[in-house]
């Protein structure tokens, strides 16, 4: 008590209140706690009785509309007889103690849909009276483009821009978006109910925890494997094996990078491959960019082959129940063809570098290169490799029992941590929590635009355009998403496209093979090769090369990346047509 008194005594209330952030927080807290007309409500009439009216509410995509308030009242809504809310499946039931003698009104209200009023005439009421049950059937509600719709849309665009323009850290941008959604929902709705987007619980329900745990598990495994120096060692072996044939060197590096990216995230793969590749390029007297850019392109393409190869594949796999084996079987051959075409283009584009005589490297530099490429911890490598293999087997076997891939990933990561890193502090820093928070916040922001119907609108528009034409649908998604992905961050883009593709999958005949999801996978990843800002692996690689005055300019990347993107998208599209 004495300590509390001392603390209170030390606090200068004026200074505290004049602290602007605190003042804003206090004001918001007061606003939220004030009961307003929208929050305080008279008790709704009880929903009980022997007579029941049943219906189901759907949106324009045929998705159930939950939490719509359904009120039965007498003529002109003067007297409310019963009230209920629609359930998860969109159904609602109104129970009446007695059937009104004249007209009955059913009002349906939902913040994101245009209110509907159904009027039941006497003969319909007679049916209800006789049978005790009246089925309204399915009712499609019309979207209301109210303040909440525009707010959520602008927030989503704002987050994309903040990430693209690097005004804020990606995680901060996503958190800002999530905070804005809840602020508008809870505070904005006090002034206008149309601002309401969703509740906190509803917002959190959009977080896909399977993705979070799968990413977390793979993060730990990747950290341990890559710390062994295996990739730097492989790059050096490529240099040795090529024996001065630069064209062979780049092909081996492309293969290594693509393979690594298929199993481990391409961002970290490029972080590790770039420094050693720069050294090799300079040692050989070739422009290092001629080695680096092909590796970036290969990392974006190679990752498409497996569930864990790209973050977008993890999102797609979790959402659409596409397994590790599904990706491997349905994507790998297309990826290989795309890599072959890419390699041919690269060899042509950089022919002056690849087909000239390599410079001789001094023994001292060779020795330093060898030292930099040594494996740091061979013992850890075989342990990590064994566990990683078991995780992959876990993915494949787990498919038979519908086991989420997050489970083998987390188990494998835990085994590695216990086996190799008993220090708790090391365990904590092995996980990049910033990335996990980014995913969580992003899910909520994308959930907001799904909730307000923006994605539904986009889905309907695309459905109208595509009709029953599945090849056209595949084409639009591969090239449309691919093109957008050249300038928009592919993770939020893929997350936003998932419900749209889901809707199209139901609608278009033949799409139940999930081909449209594979198309999304290809478009989102391959599109990242289009420009320097198309992918985070691109940007971070450019950041590293810039550290050595070997810059990758936007223009330089575009000259190679854009053609490769559209060549690989075309191959990916053709492969999907053949495969499905």
């Amino acid at each position, binding site marked *: 008590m004495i300590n509390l008194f001392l603390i209170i005594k030390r606090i200068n209330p004026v200074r505290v209140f004049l602290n602007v952030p605190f003042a804003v927080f206090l004001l918001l807290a007061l606003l939220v706690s004030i009961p307003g007309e929208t929050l305080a409500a008279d008790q709704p009439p009880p929903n009980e009785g022997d007579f029941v009216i049943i219906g189901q509410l759907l949106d324009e995509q045929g998705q159930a509309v939950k939490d719509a308030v359904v009120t039965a009242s007498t003529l002109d809504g003067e007297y409310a007889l019963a009230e209920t809310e629609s359930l998860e499946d969109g159904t609602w039931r109104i129970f009446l103690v007695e059937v009104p003698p004249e007209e009955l009104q059913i009002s349906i209200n939902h913040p994101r849909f245009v209110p509907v009023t159904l009027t039941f005439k006497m003969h319909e009421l007679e049916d209800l009276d006789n049978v005790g049950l009246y089925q309204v059937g399915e009712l499609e509600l019309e979207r209301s483009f109210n303040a909440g719709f525009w707010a959520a849309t602008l927030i989503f665009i704002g987050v994309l821009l903040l990430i693209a323009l690097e005004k804020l*850290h990606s995680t901060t941008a996503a958190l800002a978006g999530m905070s804005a959604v809840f602020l508008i929902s809870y505070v904005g709705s006090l002034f206008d109910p149309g601002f309401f987007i969703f509740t906190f619980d509803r917002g959190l329900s959009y977080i896909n925890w399977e993705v979070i745990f799968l*990413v977390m598990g793979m993060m730990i495994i990747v950290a341990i494997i890559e710390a062994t120096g295996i990739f730097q060692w492989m790059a050096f072996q490529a240099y040795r094996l090529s024996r001065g044939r630069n064209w062979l060197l780049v092909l081996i590096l492309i293969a290594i990078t693509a393979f690594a990216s298929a199993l481990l995230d391409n961002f970290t793969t490029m972080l*590790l491959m770039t420094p050693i590749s720069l050294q090799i390029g300079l040692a050989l007297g070739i422009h290092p960019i001629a080695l680096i850019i092909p590796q970036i392109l290969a990392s974006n393409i190679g990752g498409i082959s497996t569930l864990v190869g790209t973050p977008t594949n993890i999102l797609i796999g979790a959402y659409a129940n596409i397994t590790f084996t599904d990706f491997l079987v349905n994507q790998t051959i297309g990826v290989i063809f795309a890599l072959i075409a890419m390699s041919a283009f690269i060899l042509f584009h950089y022919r002056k570098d690849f087909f000239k005589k390599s410079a001789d490297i001094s023994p001292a530099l060779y020795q*330093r290169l060898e030292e930099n490429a040594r494996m740091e911890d061979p013992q850890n490598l075989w342990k990590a490799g064994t566990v990683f293999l078991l995780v992959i087997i876990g993915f494949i076997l787990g498919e038979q029992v519908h086991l989420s891939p997050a489970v083998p990933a987390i188990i494998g990561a835990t085994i590695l941590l216990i086996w190799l890193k008993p220090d708790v502090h090391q365990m904590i820093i092995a996980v990049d929590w910033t*990335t996990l928070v*980014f995913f969580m916040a992003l899910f909520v922001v994308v959930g907001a635009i799904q909730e307000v119907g923006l994605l539904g609108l986009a889905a309907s528009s695309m459905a109208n355009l595509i009709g029953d034409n599945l090849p056209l649908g595949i084409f639009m998604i591969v090239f449309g998403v691919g093109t957008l992905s050249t300038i928009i961050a592919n993770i939020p883009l893929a997350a936003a496209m998932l419900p749209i593709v889901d809707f199209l999958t139901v609608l278009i005949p033949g799409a139940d093979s999930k081909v449209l999801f594979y198309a999304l996978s290809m478009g989102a990843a391959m599109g990242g090769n289009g420009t320097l800002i198309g992918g*985070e692996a691109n940007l*971070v690689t450019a950041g590293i090369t810039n550290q050595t005055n070997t810059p990758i*300019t936007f223009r330089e990347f575009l000259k190679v990346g854009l053609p490769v993107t559209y060549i690989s998208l075309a191959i990916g599209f053709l492969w999907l047509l053949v495969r499905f």
Partner: protein
Amino acid sequence: MDVKILCLTRGGEGSYPNQDKAIAIAKERGQEMMFLYISNIEFLHHTAAPKVIDIEAELDELGEFMLLMAQERACNEDVTAHILVRRGFFQEVLSDVIEEFNIETVILGSSSGETGIITEEYLHDVTCELHLKYEVEFIILHEGKILKTYRVETGDSGCLDGQFED
């Protein structure tokens, strides 16, 4: 180690002309020189992708390799060159190294425009500040030619945009 000349370099082909000029200056003066590489991972701070590896160590090794190449170039001209890789921000690291090794001359390249890590204005400000604080000569190079020189003249009280030489 009796190093008097410090040359900041990022390595890479783009730096070769400036490295060669710095080596020529050291040879002309008959002094030992040191190549300094400053490693900074601030460019990673905006990404949301996992950064779970020790990239700083990788960049240090990269920097050392770059400096070894520069050292070999100096050796070919019979100039003794030492190498040093430090992590941190440009001004702080430069300041520390000047003090630590009693550097008399600092040679660095001018800002490389859109691909440069620092702007021309920042470079000028830092150069002036350190030049006056440590009374160290600064030579700014561009594509192997001297762009600006900051010398401590007797009686000078300011930082002058000075003498342009070939």
